[in-house]
């Protein structure tokens, strides 16, 4: 765990409260380049809230997020996407009326250059003009991205390619999850956050997804994964972090964490032996 370089992502004392409930409670986390770390824990443990804090959709009440050495706490999600952070959502947030192709192209939005000149003030107007005029450079860029989207979709075998022009709302649940991951990949992320990518998938589909995530890891992508299917977590993760009631209760290699009685207890249920000091906080 001791990296020579600054970690890619580092969280320090990250905290988020909702009314009386502390959804994320002083979480520390370091994620090195190329590492795959999984966050597990029962429902309501605060995993998704943690993702929201990292991706700017929610602001922490306390603590800091650093990405590649710079402080990104509280930056807008737009900025963070431009920095190379991509995520998928727990409930699957595809753009329902957009085709599969357009959904994934949105993922590449931060990479548009020809059509989005970085000129201050009149930049947006130039963007409008270029979108209407479409000079060769813009067309070439769009064409290149479309080819790239097809290549990304091809990673899902025949699941998405034949449906490339169908609106996302017509897809099965599993396919929507795949579209989300394709969209995230189109951003060419330096950090990828996957929120339960296999939720609602059957064993075959889960195995496929596991294969894909393994491939991404092998390609050197840094991944933070929320997942309930422990088998998959064990196979993929360099490290596993266990959260319960907003707190990190364990961290370490998969097998070690798996044997930790605290983890079994958190996951399968607080046995009747639980610690009682939290009573006053509840």
């Amino acid at each position, binding site marked *: 765990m001791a990296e020579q370089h600054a970690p890619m992502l580092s969280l320090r004392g990250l905290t988020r409260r909702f009314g009386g409930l502390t959804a994320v409670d002083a979480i520390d986390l370091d994620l090195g380049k190329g590492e795959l770390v999984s966050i597990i824990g029962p429902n309501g443990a605060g995993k998704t809230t943690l993702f929201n804090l990292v991706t700017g959709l929610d602001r922490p009440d306390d603590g800091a997020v650093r990405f590649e050495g710079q402080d990104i706490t509280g930056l807008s999600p*737009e900025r963070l996407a431009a920095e190379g952070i991509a995520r998928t959502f727990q409930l699957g947030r595809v753009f329902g009326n957009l085709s599969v192709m357009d959904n994934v192209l*949105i993922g590449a939005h931060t990479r548009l250059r020809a059509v989005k000149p970085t000129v201050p003030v009149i930049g947006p107007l130039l*963007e*409008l003009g270029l979108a209407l005029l479409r000079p060769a450079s813009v067309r070439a860029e769009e064409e290149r991205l479309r080819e790239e989207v097809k290549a990304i979709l091809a990673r899902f075998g025949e699941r998405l390619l034949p449906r490339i022009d169908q609106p996302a709302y017509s897809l099965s649940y599993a396919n929507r999850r795949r579209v989300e991951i394709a969209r995230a990949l189109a951003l060419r992320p330096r950090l990828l956050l996957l929120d339960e990518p296999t939720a609602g998938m059957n064993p075959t589909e889960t195995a496929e997804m596991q294969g894909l995530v393994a491939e991404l890891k092998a390609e050197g992508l840094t991944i933070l994964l929320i997942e309930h299917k422990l088998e998959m977590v064990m196979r993929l993760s360099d490290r596993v972090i266990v959260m319960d009631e907003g707190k990190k209760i364990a961290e370490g290699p998969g097998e070690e964490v798996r044997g930790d009685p605290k983890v079994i207890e958190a996951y399968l249920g607080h046995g009747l032996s639980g610690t009682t000091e939290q009573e006053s906080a509840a």
Partner: protein
Amino acid sequence: MSSWLDYTINGLIVGNVYALVAVGLALIFGVSRLINFAQGSIYLVGAYIGWVAVVRLHTPLPLTIIVVAAAAAMVGLIIERFGLRPLQNSVRIAPLLATIGISFVLDQLVMLTFSPNPRALPSQLPDVRFQLGGGTIGPLDLLIAGVGLTSALLLFVFLRYTKLGWAVRATAQDRDAAMQMGVDVNRVNQAVFGIAAALGGVSGMLVGMYYNQIDTAMSLQATLKGVVAEVVGGAGNVPGAVIGSLLLGLVESYGVAVFGTSYRNLFAFLLLVVVLVLRPSGLFASARQAPPEPLTGTFIAPSRPVRIPRWALLVAAAAFAVLPFFPVSSYVLQTLINAWLLGMLALSLTLVAGTMGQVSLGHAALLAIGAYTSALLSLTLAVPVGLAVIGGGLMSAALGTLLISPSFRLRGHYVSIATLAIGEIVSLVILNWESVTRGPIGISGIPPLSLFGYDLISPFSVYWFSFAVMLVLALLQGRLLGSHLGRSFRAIRDDDIAARAYGLSLNRYKSLAFIFGGFAAGVSGGIAAHLYSYINHETFNTQQSILALTVVILGGLGNVVGAIVGSVALVGLPELFRIAAEYRILIYGIVLLLLVRFRPQGLLGTI
């Protein structure tokens, strides 16, 4: 009659009237998360029922109040049962559009029954004034205050001590949980609509008596004021609505005291915009909980657009282009010119409301900005008309986007309220900024359309000109939709949170949509100004905004071809069937209601 005490009393009395409307809005919003745009129409109905009771039936005052409350409540129940309950399981845009449609139908029915001319509504109370400190107070003031207080007390008792009242509160806080306690949500909705309508109706009657005049323009004003008060107090917050109303009444009254009567409404809408920008959940809102995760595409129904082959579009365009060569009457050409002008507005609105999901109810303001700019440029600066029209489009794009930008952070219903208010502000500024806009007199003698020095006066040339402009705008918009901007707009509409997570800035893309749409609407307004040769602050009114919205829904949200087809249909069909002008808006309202109920994706489907 000019002491501060008088203005304070007046402000509180007017605030009381607003409260009767706003409390109903708050109850309805609490239970069904719906802003009832038909609330003002019920207020209008109440005023006219009051007139019938007083003038025709000579009922004594207490009976008048009971009759009005009961009749208005009936209207409310009918709206709930037949207008909204069938939409319970549809997308969220549906009930919003339905209340807009219902409001137009009701207003028109009142207008057709009683004629649009104002009527006197006598107050049935002795005309005396009591001295009170430095001011005076009349029996009608006391009556209004009394009705306001009594209603508040009755409502409090109802909500706090009756079973149905508990059900209303429980439903407002957690609909699903209330159902699991055995609460019949339909009954709760009924109760709430009945109460809201009774209060609204009585309020309309009291206002009629207060000014001793009622007319059909009261409806929209009441909706706007009620909504302002409710939003200021925090949507769905009943006590907040009362406080918001009193505050609004005072702000208006003091504003009038300082600046004059014609500024009354300006203050109301500025208050709304300020509150929406600074505290969108109202002055008394509690701290927000975790943001809910809405499912995608719940505001606009998913649908597959109807694909029209390119050759068919070409054939249709060519047919309309050569139409003047055939022996058609100038009446037909005139009708189609109107359709093309409306088509430009509809293109603009279908981009903003359909593609971008910002259901604008103040779109006619963009027409007005374009029309005034173009007229003034050509009249005072002698700019050639062709350029002046483009100038109108640019001004509309710039100013429209600037004005609307505070609402970019709002969603759903709030966007509609904000745009409605901004539309009213534009019209009020035109009315009051006499040095530039010539105020209530309007601008006359606007030069006719001309291009490169040639006047376009014959129906043929005007037809071709407007058709060509509309076609160019449509082609540009089609091109826009096919670009990365089209998909970005639609992505933001479908799920703005996911869109932001992928780097799409809401401000940037909403601005671009309004810039493009503002240009099209401004050009339409500019052309209209030169065709009409006279415009004033009422030329471009809310009715046009609603007509454009109906066209957009009819054609299919975001659908370019649909916007044009819808315009031709809504302008042409009434002409074809020779429907008298006064019935047309009624028919538009009914068309809107039927569409929302039976074909929410419109003729050609959402894009």
